[in-house]
């Protein structure tokens, strides 16, 4: 072969093998991840240990069976034996599995006991499941401190889901506001739900628990490596169950502290802004942005709605009718329907803007300008 041809051949083979091996890594995950916590690694080891026991038992049992199938067939002239019971044998194959089970139960009990010990946490975060988003609230020791809490929504676009845009690498596993936690700290999660049962799961932490309305469940983790970790809601929770991912950013302590301080500042600014008045132009601009981010999936561009599930806002009697009623509906939602309560998901400025926007768009022209103070008044009244 010519040297040049050889070179090309070598290059092609190299390219093919790297392509193949990366695609193999990406798409052909066969096993549970080992994860980034001590518990996740112990869970992985336990899983592998039980798996190998099963493989070993399977090899013996299926081996004997296969051997009989090959050798004890009528076509080979096999004559059936007449034995049909043996108490001794039955006792042996009752006792041996029992002993193996005990060998399995010992490490399982150990790992479970560790996983259940949520004491002495260094940071507590309350997680609340909603149809179909998560809310994270950082619990404070000092009630005078600014509280950090936010919602985390899937940020994959509907166009990607509906195959109108190419899908990104983190398709369905991206959120607008990830949960941020420090590494090497024992973080305790207090888990509950606002509506139906959800389950919060991050495979790399080996942490999965149900978020149940009316209950508070507890789980914890100590993440050892900084990084971005992804998971999904694991309990069927309605239409968009497949679309409520979980993203956790694990940061070194100093970066986490900086992030947390930034969040507190932002919360303080939001609170302050609720006391300001807004202009019509500002409200319409911000309202449009929020509408397109939050409401458009159901009420559609142009406020046309999507009959029969989602009513049109264009010309809606609520949106063109009494302002307070309209505000109340957006704040509290309509229980038992897909219309969620936005009183916690949006801040007063955002709520004022979006309601102003829908009352002055899509052909609606009430001329109402809602102020954050109006929203605050209703929120306080509700408390």
């Amino acid at each position: 072969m010519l040297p040049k041809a050889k070179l090309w051949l070598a290059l092609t083979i190299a390219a093919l093998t790297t392509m193949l091996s990366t695609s193999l890594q990406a798409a052909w995950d066969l096993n549970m991840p080992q994860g980034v916590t001590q518990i996740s690694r112990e869970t992985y080891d336990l899983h592998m240990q039980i798996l190998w026991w099963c493989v070993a038992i399977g090899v013996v049992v299926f081996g004997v069976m296969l051997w009989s199938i090959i050798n004890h067939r009528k076509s080979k002239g096999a004559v059936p034996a007449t034995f049909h019971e043996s108490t001794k044998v039955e006792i042996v194959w009752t006792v041996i599995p029992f002993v193996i089970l005990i060998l399995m139960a010992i490490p399982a009990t150990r790992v479970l006991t560790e996983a259940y010990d949520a004491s002495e946490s260094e940071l507590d975060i309350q997680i609340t499941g909603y149809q179909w988003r998560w809310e994270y609230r950082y619990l404070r020791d000092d009630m005078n401190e600014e509280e950090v809490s936010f919602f985390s929504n899937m940020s994959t676009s509907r166009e990607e889901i509906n195959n109108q845009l190419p899908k990104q690498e983190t398709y369905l596993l991206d959120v607008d506001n990830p949960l941020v936690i420090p590494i090497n700290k024992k973080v305790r999660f207090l888990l509950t739900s606002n509506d139906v049962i959800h389950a919060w799961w991050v495979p790399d932490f080996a942490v999965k628990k149900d978020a149940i309305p009316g209950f508070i469940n507890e789980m914890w983790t100590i993440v050892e490596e900084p990084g971005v970790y992804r998971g999904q809601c694991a309990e069927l929770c309605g239409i968009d169950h497949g679309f409520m991912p979980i993203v956790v950013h694990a940061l070194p302590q100093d970066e986490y502290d900086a992030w947390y301080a930034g969040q507190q500042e932002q919360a303080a600014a939001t609170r302050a802004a609720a006391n300001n008045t807004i202009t019509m132009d500002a409200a319409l601009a911000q309202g449009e942005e929020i509408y397109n981010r939050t409401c458009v999936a159901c009420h559609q561009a142009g406020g046309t709605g999507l009959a029969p599930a989602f009513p049109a806002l264009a010309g809606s009697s609520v949106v063109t009718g009494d302002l307070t009623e309209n505000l109340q509906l957006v704040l509290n939602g309509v229980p038992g329907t897909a219309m969620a309560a936005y009183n916690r998901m949006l801040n007063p400025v955002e709520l004022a803007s979006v309601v102003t926007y829908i009352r002055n768009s899509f052909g609606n022209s009430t001329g109402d300008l809602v102020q954050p103070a109006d929203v605050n008044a209703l929120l306080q009244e509700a408390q």
Partner: protein
Amino acid sequence: MSAAHDDHHHGPAKGISRWLFTTNHKDIGSLYLWFSFAMFLLGGTFAMVIRAELFQPGLQLVDPNFFNQMTTMHGLIMVFGAVMPAFVGLANWMIPMMIGAPDMALPRMNNWSFWILPFAFAMLSSTLLMESGAPNFGWTFYAPLSTTYAPSSVTFFIFAVHIMGASSIMGAINIIATVLNMRAPGMTLMKMPLFVWTWLITAYLLIAVMPVLAGAVTMMLFDIHFGTSFFNAAGGGDPVLFQHVFWFFGHPEVYIMILPAFGVVSAIIPTFARKRLFGYDSMVYATASIAFLSFIVWAHHMFTVGMPIAGELFFMYATMLIAVPTGVKVFNWVATMFRGSMTFETPMLFAIAFVVLFTMGGFTGLMLAITPADFQYHDTYFVVAHFHYVLVPGAVFSIMAAAYYWLPKWTGYMYDERLGKLHFWLSFIGVNVLFFPQHFLGLAGMPRRIPDYALQFADFNWISSIGGFLFGASQLILLFVVIKCIKGGKKATAQVWEGAQGLEWTVASPAPYHTFATPPDPKLIHDQ
């Protein structure tokens, strides 16, 4: 006069009234089996929709709400419409013939317990056409998704479940009454074929847990319509209570679907190994222990609800224990084959595949029992793979094995062995291509019951879908083989299979409309 009298009593009525008013166990058995097959195709169609949507990432064919309706209806129809009625059909046909009884003990109730089923499933299926859509909360219908947040069709679902429950309870009472009262002289309990034993125990399970299911759906009904708050946290209720009640029914339910399968396989393997079943007594005791244990393991479906650690440990240990009697059964089947003289007709192929693939489902069941590992497996495709392994190449394969095994007795003709084998091999390959990759998907982190998935799950999903289409299409062969066999073929002898033992093989093929009007000669009753 006596001739007219004979005519009246010994032949079936003509036309549709034969089927509507029949009290004959063989007719009712056939009705159950045909109904089950129809439901199998309907539930299978829903499964095809699911696998087609999951063929590629992105939403292609259906919207998420309809997808959820499909997973829910697939589960409900397969469990309550396909698997359970198929076993009741087999019981109706075979139990009287196996114990030398002329019919079931309560023939009119038998007619009734079948004929309410089509109404239940018509009502359940009709929800697909309702404006609210069909139930979309999963076949496990966890509250409050199935109560406060349910589509209005849930009430029809509740009523349908009540009727199915009533049907099952009547069927179970009938089987217990038949087995305990109508055995031929000489047919002692410990001489009964294992199929009869496993069904007797299953019937007790049914009587114990179907009322619990009825209780669960009744509480739902009250929460939805009468303002109670059994499962509504806002009213002081407890959503986890629903899961305890549901799984107290649901776990024995999975044994209801597998114990009769054990009975079928225990009949077929000795026949084609030409050797007595190994360890008959231990098989009976193992079945009874499994049934007992099935009542104290329910919360292993709920390891992530946040039970106290003592609860988690109790349910883990109890669940692991089930591996012991189940292992005994598998070892006994292998020991029966060992040093036999085997041939591999279609029933035997299905029975062997049952032993291997059911055992694999058992292995993953053992893995799922390990609580800390279950935190990773729970509600993923690993669970989907596990229960499909025990239910499809488990329960469903055993039903197919039974159909091939007894078809000659039912129709009087041999089925087409070549087509039967083709059906077996396509099903065997299809089922493994369909479900084996789902283990990998679950371990890699794919949750169950999602209409769309992240890109790293794409490859195993399309493979699984291809397997699904293959498996689905292969079942049409079964339909063809059965129809062909009813129409004709090689005449079957009374014995049918060289190695077959038992009273059902002492009557002619096809079995006359009435058998054992006089009890069989006690000499025909052998040790099992």
